C-alpha cells in the first residue's frame, strides 16, 4: 500500500478510547446505522427488481458518518444538507423510512411528493435542506442556512437562535470552487456550520490522489484560518466526538469546522456503476473496518447490549424497512392533474 494513501492515513490515526459510551447512545447509534444499511440493501434489491429508477447512489460503508454527525445534533433544530447520496442522511435526520422509500418509488407519499427522486430528498419538517445532485451546489445552500442562524441571533436579536448546519459532501467536491468560496465566507463571518467531507477515496472512477494536489483535505481549513480535523470515518464514536467539538465551537460563536472523515463506500458509485477500478485488496481493507461491526465490538466489550437484543433490533429494523416497501408499493402515484403543482408559491 502506498505511503500516505487513503488506507494508510486511516491506519495512522491515533488510537482512541471509547470509555464514555453509554447504553442509550449505543442503542441509538446501532439502530441508526443498521437502519441505514438495511434500507440501502433493500434499495438495491428494489432497483434490480425494477421498482425504482434513475440514478441510485447507496451509502453502504459510510454509516458512521451520517449516524455520528447527525446523531450528535439536535433533530428538527439543527439543519442538514446532503448530496445525491442522501437516503441515509434523511433517515438519520428522522425522515420516516416509508417517506424516503415512497420517494424512491416516485409516489405522492414521498418526502418530495414523487417530484424529487433519489437525489432530491427534502423535508422541511426534519430540517433536511435537501439532496443536491450536482457536485458542490449544496454547500452554498447550507451556508445560507447557517447565515440565517447568525442573522436571527445578531440582526434580529433572537438569543434562542443557535442552530448549526451540517453540510455533507465528498472528496471530489473538495476540488470545486464552491467548496473554497464557502469555506472562506463561513470563516469570515464565523457562521455556525460543519463541513463534513465523506472522503471515500473515489469520485466515481477518479481516485482522490489523482484529482487533488494535496489529498489531506482537513488541512485545507488552515488556508482559511479554520479548524480542521481528520477523523476515522469508519468509527461512529470518533465521528460523534469530533462533531460534538465542532458543534460546541459553532454554538459558542467560534464559527465553522472542516471534518474530513476517512471512509469507504462498499458498493459502486451508483447502482449503474460497473465498479471496475477498485482493487479487491482495497475493498478487503475497508470491509474489515465495517463501521457497524466496529460498534458491535465495542458494545460487546462493554457489555452494553446483549446479543439477543441486537438481533431483535435487527429484526425490528428489517420489519420497518419491509413495511416501508409495502407502504411505497401500495401508495398512489402523484395525481396527473397536479403535474404543475409546486412550481409557484402563493
Amino acid at each position, binding site marked *: 500500500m502506498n505511503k500516505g494513501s487513503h488506507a494508510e492515513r486511516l491506519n495512522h490515526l491515533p488510537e482512541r478510547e471509547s470509555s464514555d459510551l453509554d447504553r442509550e447512545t449505543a442503542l441509538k447509534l446501532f439502530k441508526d446505522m443498521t437502519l441505514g444499511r438495511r434500507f440501502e440493501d433493500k434499495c438495491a434489491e428494489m432497483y434490480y427488481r425494477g421498482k425504482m429508477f434513475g440514478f441510485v447512489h447507496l451509502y453502504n460503508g459510510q454509516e458512521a458518518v451520517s449516524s455520528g454527525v447527525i446523531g450528535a445534533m439536535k433533530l428538527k433544530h439543527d*439543519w442538514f*444538507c446532503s448530496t445525491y447520496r442522501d437516503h441515509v442522511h434523511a433517515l438519520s435526520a428522522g425522515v420516516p423510512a416509508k417517506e424516503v422509500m415512497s420517494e424512491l418509488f416516485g409516489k405522492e407519499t*414521498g*418526502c*418530495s*411528493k*414523487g*417530484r*424529487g427522486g433519489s437525489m*432530491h430528498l*427534502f*423535508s*422541511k419538517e426534519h430540517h433536511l*435542506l*435537501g439532496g*443536491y*445532485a*450536482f457536485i458542490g*451546489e449544496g*454547500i*452554498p*445552500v*447550507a*451556508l*445560507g*442556512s*447557517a*447565515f*440565517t*442562524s*447568525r*442573522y*436571527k441571533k*445578531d*440582526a*434580529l436579536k433572537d438569543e434562542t437562535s443557535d442552530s448549526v448546519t451540517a453540510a455533507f459532501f465528498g472528496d471530489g467536491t473538495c476540488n470545486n*470552487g*464552491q467548496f473554497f*468560496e*464557502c469555506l*472562506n*465566507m463561513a470563516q*469570515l463571518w464565523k457562521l455556525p456550520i460543519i463541513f463534513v467531507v465523506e472522503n471515500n477515496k473515489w469520485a466515481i472512477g477518479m481516485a482522490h490522489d489523482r484529482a487533488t494536489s494535496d489529498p489531506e483535505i482537513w488541512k485545507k481549513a488552515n488556508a482559511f484560518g479554520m479548524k480542521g480535523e481528520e477523523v476515522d470515518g469508519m468509527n461512529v464514536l470518533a465521528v460523534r466526538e469530533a462533531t460534538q467539538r465542532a458543534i460546541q465551537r459553532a454554538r459558542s460563536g467560534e464559527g465553522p469546522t472542516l471534518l474530513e472523515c476517512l471512509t469507504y463506500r462498499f458498493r459502486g458509485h451508483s447502482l449503474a456503476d460497473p465498479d471496475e477500478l477498485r482493487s479487491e485488496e482495497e475493498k478487503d481493507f475497508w470491509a474489515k473496518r465495517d463501521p457497524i461491526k466496529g460498534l458491535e465490538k465495542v458494545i460487546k466489550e462493554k457489555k452494553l447490549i446483549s446479543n439477543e437484543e441486537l438481533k431483535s433490533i435487527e429484526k425490528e429494523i428489517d420489519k420497518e424497512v419491509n413495511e416501508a416497501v409495502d407502504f411505497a408499493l401500495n401508495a398512489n402515484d402523484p395525481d396527473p392533474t397536479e403535474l404543475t*403543482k*409546486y*412550481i*409557484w*408559491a*402563493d
Partner: protein
Amino acid sequence: MAGTLLFNALRDAIDEEMAKDPHVCVMGEDVGQYGGSYKVTKDLYEKYGELRVLDTPIAENSFTGMAVGAAMTGLRPIVEGMNMGFLLLAFNQISNNMGMLRYTSGGNFTIPTVVRGPGGVGRQLGAEHSQRLEAYFHAVPGIKIVACSTPTNAKGLMKAAIRDNNPVLFFEHVLLYNLSEELPKGDYICALDQADIVKEGKDITILTYSRMRHHCLKALEQLDSKGIDAELIDLISLKPFDLETISKSIKKTHKVIIVEECMKTGGIGAELIALINENCFDELDSRPVRLSSQDIPTPYNGKLENLTIIQPHQIVETAEQMITQGL
C-alpha cells in the same frame, strides 16, 4: 416636487421594505460600505448594519446559493448582481436551486428571493458587460422575470418582487438609472405580471421592454406626425407574459412589432412570437415582426455598438412599411 431618479426609486423601495420586514436583507458585491456600484443601496449599510446589507466576496455562484439557503430558512434576500452579466457565474444556483427547488422538493420549501441588477447595452462597456441575460434565463422553470423601465414602475415592481414568495429576476437597465420622474405618493406596488399600456392606439401594436420603451416613445412621435396611431405596450413581465393585455391589443390593431434589446436568436421576441402565433393567429393581418439586436457580441466601438441594437428610426420604418405596404 422634485423628481426621483430611478436608482433612488429602487433604493427607496428596498429601504421601505427592509424597514417593514426585518427578514428582508441584501447581499452582493459592494452593496454595503460602497453603497452599490450604481448606488441602489446607498446608506442602507449604515442604517441596517452589516448582516442585513452584506458585502460579499466576489463569489457569485456561492453567494447566490447562500441566498437560496437563507430563503429556505426564513429570510427574504435580495441579491445584487453588480452587473447582471456576472450572474452567468451563478447560473447553476439560479437554475437548479432558485428555479427548480420548490418543485423538486414537492413544495417543502419556498425561495422568496430577488436577484436584481443592471443589464443591457450601455455606452461602450464591451461585450461582457453588455449582456441581456433575460433571454438566457427565460427557459428556467419557477422564476419570474421582470424588467423595470421608469422610476415609478421601478419602485412599485421592486416592492412587489420583495413581497413575492417566488424567486424574481429583476432587470434594471444600466442607461436608465438617471431617469427622473415624480413618484406616486405613499406605499404603492406594481403587479409583477401586468404589462403597461404606455400609449393606446389603433393602427399597430408595439411590444417592448426596458430601455427600448424609450426608443419606441421616440419612434411614436414620428409615427404620430405621419398619422400612424400606434399602441405601445411595455411588457414589464418577461415571464410569464401578460397574454391578456397582448391579445387584447392585437385584436384591436391586427399588427404587431416586437422591439427588444436582446439578440434575435433565442430571444424574448422569439418566445413572444410563438405565443402570439399560438393564441392570436387569426387576428393577424400581417406577419409579426421582430426588431432585435444583432446576433453578435456587443462591439466596443460606439458606431458599431449603435448598429448592434435597434434605433428609433428602424421602428418607424418598419411600422410604416407594415401599414402602408401591408407587409
